[in-house]
């Protein structure tokens, strides 16, 4: 139960932080249609975040609410992987970050949906449909940018050089995840890899971009060892709750 709590919190933090990053684009996107798409994805992630924090609060059973968990922890207590806290950069960086996340998110949810934990399965069931759309969106943009203009290709390459190193953490299980995998509560990430790799290979093929090879993978976020970016996210995210503790909004 303690491990399940930690895992659900990790998922919640992940969609919270990525949703936060995407929402920073709001009103500043390159095309109004894509502003809309990013807000939509952020909104889906936020919905997933809320279900997860609510479930986490229930698992913890200490009377903390979704907002307490979302807003009132310290930086080292957040458990999102490093990928999702990386800055938006240009649109190419946002697309790469999203594509790498979506690839994992979708394939993980497909399996999580079969979890013996009924609530986790229910959350996954709702989220997997949204994640399928997100993955479609980010895959299409990977292809457009890779097989678009020289500039878009160059920006995509640069984004991959910067962000690919954060993709490995998604499928590198922490001790908590290993325990839950062993108990059959959450999917074995190694088993997700073939489908994920096939999707990546397909999209990179269409995008005419070689899949990066032999990159050293950064880890730490899922165990609370973050980059310096997270602190600035939290300063904004937590601003109201920290300034006005204990009020209702």
């Amino acid at each position: 139960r303690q491990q399940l709590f930690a895992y659900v919190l990790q998922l919640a933090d992940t969609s919270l932080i990525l949703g936060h990053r995407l929402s920073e684009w709001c009103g500043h996107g390159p095309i109004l249609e894509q502003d809309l798409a990013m807000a939509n994805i952020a909104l889906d992630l936020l919905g997933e975040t809320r279900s997860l924090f609510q479930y986490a609060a229930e698992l913890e059973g200490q009377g903390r609410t979704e907002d307490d968990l979302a807003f009132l922890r310290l930086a080292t207590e957040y458990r999102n992987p490093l990928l999702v806290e990386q800055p938006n950069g240009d649109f190419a960086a946002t697309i790469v970050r999203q594509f790498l996340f979506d690839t994992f998110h979708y394939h993980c949810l497909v399996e999580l949906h079969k979890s013996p934990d009924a609530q986790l399965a229910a959350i996954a069931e709702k989220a997997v449909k949204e994640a399928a759309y997100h993955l479609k969106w980010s895959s299409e943009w990977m292809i457009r940018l890779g097989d678009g203009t020289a500039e878009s290709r160059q920006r995509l390459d640069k984004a991959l050089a910067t962000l690919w190193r954060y993709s490995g953490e998604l499928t590198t299980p922490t001790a908590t995840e290993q325990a839950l995998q062993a108990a059959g509560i959450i999917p074995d990430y190694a088993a997700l890899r073939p489908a994920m790799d096939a999707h990546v290979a397909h999209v990179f093929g269409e995008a005419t971009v070689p899949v990066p090879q032999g990159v050293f993978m950064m880890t730490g976020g899922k165990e609370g060892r973050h980059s310096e970016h997270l602190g600035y996210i939290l300063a904004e995210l937590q601003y109201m709750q920290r300034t006005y503790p204990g009020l209702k909004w």
Partner: protein
Amino acid sequence: METVEINLEDQFQARIDADISIEPKDWMPDAYRKTLIRQISQHAHSELVGMLPEGNWITRAPSLKRKSILLSKVQDEAGHGLYLYSAAETLGASRDQMLADLHSGKAKYSSIFNYPTLSWADMGCVGWLVDGAAILNQVPLCRTSYGPYARAMVRVCKEESFHQRQGFEIMQTLCEGAPEQKAMAQEALNRWWWPTLMMFGPKDADSPNTAQSMNWRIKRFTNDELRQKFVDMMVPQAEFLGLTVPDPAVKWNEARQAYDFGEVNWEEFWNVVKGNGMCNQDRLGARVKAHEEGAWVREAALAHAKKRAERAETQAA
């Protein structure tokens, strides 16, 4: 020729007078077309720019629920922008040109968005007052003479009144909350009250285009009529919330069966219109930056679509 022109114009006005909607392929006077393009694109630009003051608080919203509602609202505004640009396109305007006019300062957007959002209570005021004023302006447009515009406005108004309710609910929560929350609500009302009264435009006496617009049924009430309606609607709501409208002249007038209220600061109004509001520079700057930095994305999308189309053709051949 002259005769034909006159006949077309007469027929057109007859349709208007009979409340039959004008559709894209119908003949219409140039001035009507131009006025509509100006009005619809200005409205579209307002939705686009209007994302910024609210977008400013998404990352700092005080609860997950409020964050979600706010994000969803801003998303709706992007959607409204899209419908409205499409409606303007049916009149022969191109989105690129409309955006270029926005960026050069030639086209306007609602001045209200040149005021900053400085506290969470501003999310309440923007929903409650700004959307409230927008609805009063827009509801009559659901019956406006140009079909595509009227239909877009039906969708817009439905969502706007939902937003307005959410804004009121933010205010209500604050007013029923801790003293610092109520103070936050009052402080925000103090800043937003007068600017929202300005949203109905200059006084009728200073609004020379009103008559023609009413004649074409693009507009159905005068600025002053709408402003009065707004005050009559909002003063009791503020009282219900326990807030004080920052206008000592506000008083129920039994004879008029309406509220008297003070004079808007028209100097401020014209200043903000002329570009001297607190945020004119930041708002337009943000839009221009987004557009310029997005150029390569739009080019890439086009280039890719072209490559795809060429490949499809080659395969078909």
